[in-house]
């Protein structure tokens, strides 16, 4: 069974929304990795494109949202574009042609 605090972290990330699509970052497939090291949250995330003007804001938003989770004292966010994001990472189903 998954760590309850890790579940809380995932829940907190569900509140961070990509403003273009209205989907949260987990549904967008932008969170590559989420780990917990005692009271420290470690996140590896991406954006839809490396030059995304929102990259810095999304990173700050993730830090802010996770820091609000009880028991979390420190958050380390790593932005990566390797592998690059693709729409195939999204949770939502494909539209019918």
């Amino acid at each position, binding site marked *: 069974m998954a760590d309850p605090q890790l579940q809380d972290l995932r829940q907190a990330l569900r509140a961070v929304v990509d403003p273009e*699509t209205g989907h949260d970052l987990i549904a967008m497939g932008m969170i590559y990795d989420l780990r917990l090291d005692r009271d420290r949250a470690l996140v590896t995330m991406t954006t839809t494109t490396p030059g995304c003007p929102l990259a810095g804001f999304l990173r700050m938003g993730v830090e*802010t949202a996770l820091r609000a989770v009880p028991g979390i004292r420190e958050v380390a966010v790593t932005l990566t574009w390797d592998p690059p994001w693709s729409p195939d990472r*999204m949770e939502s189903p494909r539209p019918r042609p």
Partner: protein
Amino acid sequence: MPGKSLSPWTLGWFGSAVIFLLLALVLAFVCDLGPGDWARPQALAVVHLFTLGWLAQVMLGALVQFVPVLTAYPLPRPALALPALLATGAGTLALSAGFLGLDGHTGMQVLFRIAPLVLGCGFALVAVMILPSLARKANLHLIEVRMVLIALAGLAGLWTTGGAMVLTLGGASLTVDLAQMLPLHMLFGIGAFLSFAAFGVSYKLFAMFLLAPETAGWQRRWVGGLAAVCAVLMLAALAVALSGAFAAPIRLALSLPALALCGLYLDDIRRLWRNRRRPALEPNMAWSRVALVFLGLSAALLPLAQWQGGRMAEAAVFAALVGWLSTLTLSQLIRITSFLTWIQVFAPLIGRRKVPVVQQISDRVTASRALALWSASTGLGVASLLFGSHIAFRLALAGLFLAAAAIARELVAIRKLWHLPVADRPPCLPPIIRPSVHPLSVAEP
């Protein structure tokens, strides 16, 4: 620092361009322009307010904003954006006033001669800003980047042909054959500069807005190659024309790669569309399809326009400038202005509280109605030029003006957040044309 890749004057470029668009449409109506009138000095003034003031300014502003997204590399000299904006605006006004001088207003002659210099300074400043990011070795394999580089070569060709014609018309010792230079001037401006830049930028923008995979297929590689072939042919035709020889065969030969290029681009966009993950289309993408139809129409008319000239050429140029480039630009302008406004006001609040999505700060019904009126008026304009109907063309101009005014009002509504409930608006909004990101104290209600 978040938001550092935002160019502070993008909305200044867009605002200036929209004012030029409205001015051009009003003057076209007031001067009673219609089919066959395009050699009149007033018509030349209106055409340059439209092409340089509206289309070129909005494209240059978009490139300054978008090249860092395309290349994932910030502009090294972003402060040059304001002088470039002022130079292109002043140059456009001087050139248009100078064209009026051809009608006997002698005081305008000086403006006519200095206009190419002022415009050249504006274009050069933009090139100095964006070339270092585009020409990085890591980005040169991207077709989108190559298209924008070819577009900058097209801009140089546009300026050279335009400058040569101004010198000739202004009575300088250097003279060129205007009949040879004018078609080349239009090919450089509409094709090499504006269309190739639009192709390059749209590959990235469409993929982002449709949530479609960005992978470049064989069509895109061919589009890049054919764009280079077209640019080389145009430059060859320019060299031939400047030497005084007959350049028409090269210009006519250009029709074949240009047609193939447009066909492959449209097929590539169709592939992107079919692979999208966004089922419901926003107005910007829905109405971009109309722009693509006008691109197909203007490309189909190109060989006939080159061969016959006259009405066919007028209709092809109108379909390209008003139907393809302007419909695409107006559609995307609403979306990009919404996005930049959202970043300014709400991006610093991500993760802190619930924020509206970008779509909520524009009104899709207003945008769709205005774009529908624009598209229908454009269709009427093309038909009126083909059939030589003066009254239908004036009706089309009136429709275009009403549509442009409605879009301008919608852009102001977006900047003022009029479509959001009052409770969701911050107490202090950023300036209407300067998109710097404000600290949380400004954004937090």
